[in-house]
């Protein structure tokens, strides 16, 4: 169905208001858009992290749908158990044969790229019928901005701070969509929170394929990327316009770039104004900015080639 924001948000309310995210957080938008992309009932598992702590605090819950938080590193393994229970009970006739339920696991980048990677890999390889959604805010934000393997090169975090001799994270980020896709799953995609039509379309595809699907969604973090709360969507958009965060999908192994910026916007447009990159704009760090631009350009060219452009 074509994307219509007003229509989409009329559908069953699954992620309710009243949660305790920071003002300007991208997470509720990701949750609502993804969960609107199917009309079937959905059961969710959730890794420990910002989404889990802000969406529940006993005796309250934001989840007007079945939801389980088990631990940090096992959202995928947990949902694989739920999904297997569904298949088993259905096969035994304990759940009607025509009953449809969708399964989704949510995790942040720490719970997905790092500590939960094995659990995710296992669940993807086993072929469970589920969607894994990573809200990627590029670090361990729930614990106060520590470096993850999704943290970009040069970003200052509390465990990779900028100082007199070190200038933030020294490694490039992990390319998780390609890693997920290498499990030969039917659908993997990269999305960003500002482009709701694209995210919705990807979630809809992910729910409709048979087998595992993976989506990672750029979810700018006002608190720890250190920019004013009203700029979350703007930073998400800049990440895409500068090609720092391309929107693409891999469907049955075929790569498709979903959005090609019409202008060449330098990556500094995305980096500037964010406290975590402030040190990069010192004159002595100009080489780092060049390196980041070069890295972005090369990655974009590689991606276009994969798309056959």
């Amino acid at each position, binding site marked *: 169905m074509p994307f219509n924001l007003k229509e989409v948000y009329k559908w069953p309310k699954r992620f309710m208001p009243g949660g305790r995210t920071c003002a300007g957080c991208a997470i509720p938008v990701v949750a609502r858009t993804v969960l609107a992309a199917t009309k079937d009932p959905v059961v969710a598992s959730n890794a420990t992290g910002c989404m889990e702590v802000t969406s529940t605090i006993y005796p309250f819950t934001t989840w007007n749908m079945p939801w389980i938080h088990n631990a940090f590193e096992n959202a995928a393994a947990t949902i*694989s158990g739920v999904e297997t229970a569904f298949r088993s009970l259905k096969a035994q006739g304990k759940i009607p044969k025509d009953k449809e339920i969708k399964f989704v696991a949510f995790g942040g980048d720490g719970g997905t790229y790092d500590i939960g990677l094995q659990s995710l890999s296992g669940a993807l390889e086993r072929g469970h019928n589920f969607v894994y959604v990573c809200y990627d805010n590029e670090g361990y934000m729930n614990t106060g901005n520590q470096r993850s393997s999704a943290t970009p090169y040069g970003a200052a975090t509390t465990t990779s701070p900028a100082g007199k001799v070190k200038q933030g994270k020294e490694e490039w980020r992990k390319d998780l969509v390609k890693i997920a896709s290498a499990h030969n799953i039917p659908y993997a995609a990269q999305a960003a929170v500002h482009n709701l039509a694209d995210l919705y379309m990807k979630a809809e595809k992910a729910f409709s394929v048979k087998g595992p699907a993976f989506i990672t969604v750029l979810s700018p973090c006002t608190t720890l990327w250190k920019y004013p709360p009203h700029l979350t969507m703007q930073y998400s958009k800049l990440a895409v316009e500068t090609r720092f965060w391309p929107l693409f999908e891999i469907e049955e192994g075929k790569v498709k770039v979903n959005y090609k910026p019409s202008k060449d916007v330098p990556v500094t447009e995305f980096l500037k104004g964010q406290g975590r990159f402030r040190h990069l704009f010192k004159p002595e760090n100009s080489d780092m900015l060049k390196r980041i631009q070069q890295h972005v350009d090369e990655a974009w060219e590689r991606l276009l080639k994969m798309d056959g452009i």
Partner: protein
Amino acid sequence: MDTIQVSKSMRPMTGAQAVAEAMRQINPDVVAMYPITPQTPIIETFAKIVADGRASTEIIRVESEHSAMSATVGAAAAGARAMTATAANGLALMDEIVYIAASMRLPIVMPIANRALSGPINIHCDHSDTMNVRDSGWIQIYSETAQEAYEQMFLALKLAEHKDVLLPAMVCQDGFVTSHGVENVKIHDDETMKKFIGEYKPEYALLDVDNPVTYGPLQLQDYYFETKKQQVDAMKNAKRIFLEIGKELSQITGHDYGYFEKYEMDDAEAVLIAMNSTAGNIKAVVDKMRKEGKKVGMMKLRLFRPFPYEEIAEALKDVPVVGVFDRAESFGARPPLYGEIRNALFDLDKKPDMQSFVFGLGGRDIFSHQIEDAFNMLLDGKMTDETKYIGCRGC
């Protein structure tokens, strides 16, 4: 020619196979599997049972024990009867989720083939693996034989699923000694066992999508404590209900399921306490020494969590000397079973003398003469405040 009469329902099998037979009869909705010696033959046997269509279970072949317990938690919360099995490092790896399973009150049953924890790495029997999770909130039942391991699977399941309990349970047997040792096991009638465990009707299931539930919310200073206290109360209920369900099971099997088995304890001057297969070795030594006129006895503990303090104190109140056989160490503290027994005896006016023994770590064999030496030490009044390490070089 002499023939041995064996009942048709008696079959030679290992402890691992016996437990897998229990799983066939229980027919869980979901089983998560990951290999680890000496547990592996449990899941292998069960996988073949499913492959042959003798159980309708969906198997999840996970990539680690951490995911085995995580997926089992997911399946159980979904509303399925769910199981997994493990040992040693596998149990240690899933430790985090073992605690979570208990706090979510999921009635998961997990057979264990007890094995020494690393390091150094070792594949043989001791109880360091399950002692490591003794405070996790799981019911722990120990089995002397394959027959007991088999039957106690049903006891554990019915206890775990009881509405006043709702706690996960592990059914322990000694790795290799029991898991790989072949015994004649009587497999009870399928229909009878099916009727005994009954249908599983969970009250809160994730798959009941019309009645959505939140599992595993954040609980801080204002609620965490009460949740933990509820687990305490559930354990108290488990202790009481264990005996009720045990009596019901006795009517099918003809075996007793007390908290412990008393062997020649009535007039005993010295009693050794042990868990799992070593109880069988001690019984043989008791028989031999009784023939020699020595008044020795044995207590085999079946239920370690919840721990039957009062009943143990009552049973030991007239015993002059008690020796405790631990197959695990608690470094810098008294060995775990010894510590519990000593704790149980504190309220007695006249306390038995006590001696702690540690034996069999990493699968070190224990011999009848060593058990006899231990009894003689107790009978001769040579107790010490120090733990005696049986069969350990330089101890």
